[in-house]
């Protein structure tokens, strides 16, 4: 069940891009571990990494704590979130055949925001670090489920446009509910917004444990069907004539992408732009085949968010900048530069 084979030239371009992607990810992880508001000698950090968390002589207990309890889980979570958002973006763009589709399209973000608001405003105040991500996770899935069900049942569900429209309607509705609840509990307003703007500043191993299973499951699913995405992108009729169960495949991909998005939102808040710019940048590098676009989106998405988060915690150190601000600030000009370069090259 392989998609149309691309020319050999493109395959080698894809291989080269994969090697580049892995190299960039390794560099990003190293940068993320080496750079932070607290200066820890590069040699020490490298020795700490090589010895897998065993503090080398001369490193204080405190520095080992910073590396092991704060920096490493934060780099891992940033990588997981970046990979999830970028891969989900690519997948949504394929199944909806819409270049502007992004991980927040189908009410996932609005649902997560509502879930977080409910947890902050009405949940037990003591266990907020657990209830908020969990509630956001459920909210994201409920949002997507509503949009999907509505799109299929009331609007016929034949075209992808009906799904997108249902997503917009559901998102507006959930956002309205969220705003209403916030008005009722205005004393928790600020907490909701600091959460929505990104919570990587408080990341620990709990977040890794929370996100990892869903992210691995979702990314593996998307990886497994990446060749079929090329077929589905051509059109429902064409895909069906090739023997593909279009509706079922679309449902599987939407569930996987939404699961990844929900996990990302649950641990990191709403981080825009990644799901849009990373897949498109990858497409400009290696062409449109999802056999390469999907895995490379994961690699570059992870690298991108790790580097952006490194900026977030160093630019105004020892203070932090909300990561969503930097993804937009860095991402938009970067994206435009890539587009311009590509036009010149063409």
């Amino acid at each position, binding site marked *: 069940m392989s998609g149309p084979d691309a020319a050999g030239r493109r395959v080698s371009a894809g291989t080269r891009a994969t090697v580049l992607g892995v190299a960039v990810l390794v560099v990003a992880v190293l940068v993320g571990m080496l750079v*932070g508001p607290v200066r820890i000698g590069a040699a020490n950090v490298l020795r700490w990494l090589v010895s897998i968390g065993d503090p080398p002589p001369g490193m204080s207990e405190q520095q080992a704590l910073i590396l092991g*309890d704060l920096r490493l889980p934060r780099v891992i979570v940033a990588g997981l979130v970046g990979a999830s958002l970028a891969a989900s973006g690519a997948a949504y763009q394929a199944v909806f055949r819409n270049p502007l589709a992004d991980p927040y399209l189908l009410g996932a973000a609005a649902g997560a925001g509502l879930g977080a608001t409910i947890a902050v405003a009405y949940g037990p105040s003591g266990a907020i670090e657990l209830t908020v991500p969990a509630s956001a996770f459920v909210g994201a899935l409920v949002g997507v489920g509503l949009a999907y069900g509505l799109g299929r049942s009331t609007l016929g569900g034949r075209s992808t446009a009906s799904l997108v429209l249902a997503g917009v309607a559901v998102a507006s509705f959930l956002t309205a509910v969220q705003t209403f609840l916030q008005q009722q509990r205005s004393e928790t307003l*600020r907490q909701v917004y600091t959460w929505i703007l990104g919570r990587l*500043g408080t990341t620990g191993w709990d977040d890794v444990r929370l996100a990892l299973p869903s992210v691995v499951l979702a990314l593996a699913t998307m990886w497994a069907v990446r060749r079929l995405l090329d077929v589905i992108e051509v059109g429902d009729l064409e895909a069906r004539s090739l023997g593909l169960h279009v509706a079922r495949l679309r449902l599987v991909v939407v569930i996987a992408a939404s699961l990844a998005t929900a996990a990302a939102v649950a641990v990191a808040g709403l981080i825009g732009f990644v799901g849009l710019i990373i897949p498109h940048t990858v497409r400009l590098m290696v062409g449109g085949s999802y056999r390469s676009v999907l895995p490379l989106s994961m690699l570059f998405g992870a690298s991108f968010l790790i580097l952006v988060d490194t900026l977030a915690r160093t630019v*105004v150190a020892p203070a*932090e900048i909300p990561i969503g601000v930097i993804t937009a600030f860095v991402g938009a000009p970067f994206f435009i530069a890539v587009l311009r370069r590509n036009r010149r090259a063409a």
Partner: protein
Amino acid sequence: MGKLLGIFVAVALAFALDACSDDPAITTAPTGGSATASIGAAAFPVTVTGTNGDVTIDSRPERIVSLSPTATEDLFAIGAGDQVIAVDDQSNYPPEVPTTDLSGFEPNVEAIAGYEPDLVVFATEPGDLGSSLEGLGITALQLDAAPNLDVAYDQIEQLGAATGHVDESAALVERMRSDIQGLVDGADPATGVSFYFELDDTFYSVTSKTFIGQLLRMLGLENIADAVGKGSGGYPQLSAEYIIESDPDLIFLADTRCCGQSLETVSRRPGWHELSAVTRGDVVPLNDDVASRWGPRIVDLLRRISDAADSAEANAA
């Protein structure tokens, strides 16, 4: 993102007024509620000065609406409580205040006017509340978040003049001045005791440029947030790494109400269990409300902080 940012900025601005519910643990004996209004030196009409400029009050107001939790506390502390008929939903101290569902953040002019007030006191100016009220012939006095103690004192005295409680307001200010001076005099200026002041559980803090930050500095304490450069607006979000590295002697939690934080939750955070303040138990829960207002109860807050600093100094020695 732009919309989110806009909201975030608005929320951050409104932060000074962020309030939850009341903590009976910190109390100042409220002098409000006494019917013995000293007309004394007060003569109407009187002109007082607020953030919105000079405001002339023709006669002793008897139907005051307060949309500012701090002004509410001030009014009751100077004995003008009987003249207050309605306060906003965030005003919760003293306990007998006539709390309504009026909002100081998103004031509804019509709802305010429905109380037929002869004086409206408010803090923030979202839009043009003052002029809207003036347009309806309602006297409006704005007393915005005080940048320092002098302004906080002045606001109390302006309220005293505006309500006919000049003597009480002067006495209250005098008492606050001497209490705070006593705490400052009692503080050892060279302790080198450092602290981290937490506004929420994502590590938003205050620098010494803020109202509360200035008070802490008066007690000779070192604020770890002061390492943050200019342009943070006084309320930076600190990196967890930096807090761990700074290893402050004291952690003040002004997020006990909003975010349910305590020594226990703090010690559960990644990397925090080995902080000196955590192992020694020098994590001090504060009342979020008092810490975010600039009313009479800051004296109690300062006393609590001063005591905590003394014990932290002893623990560290």
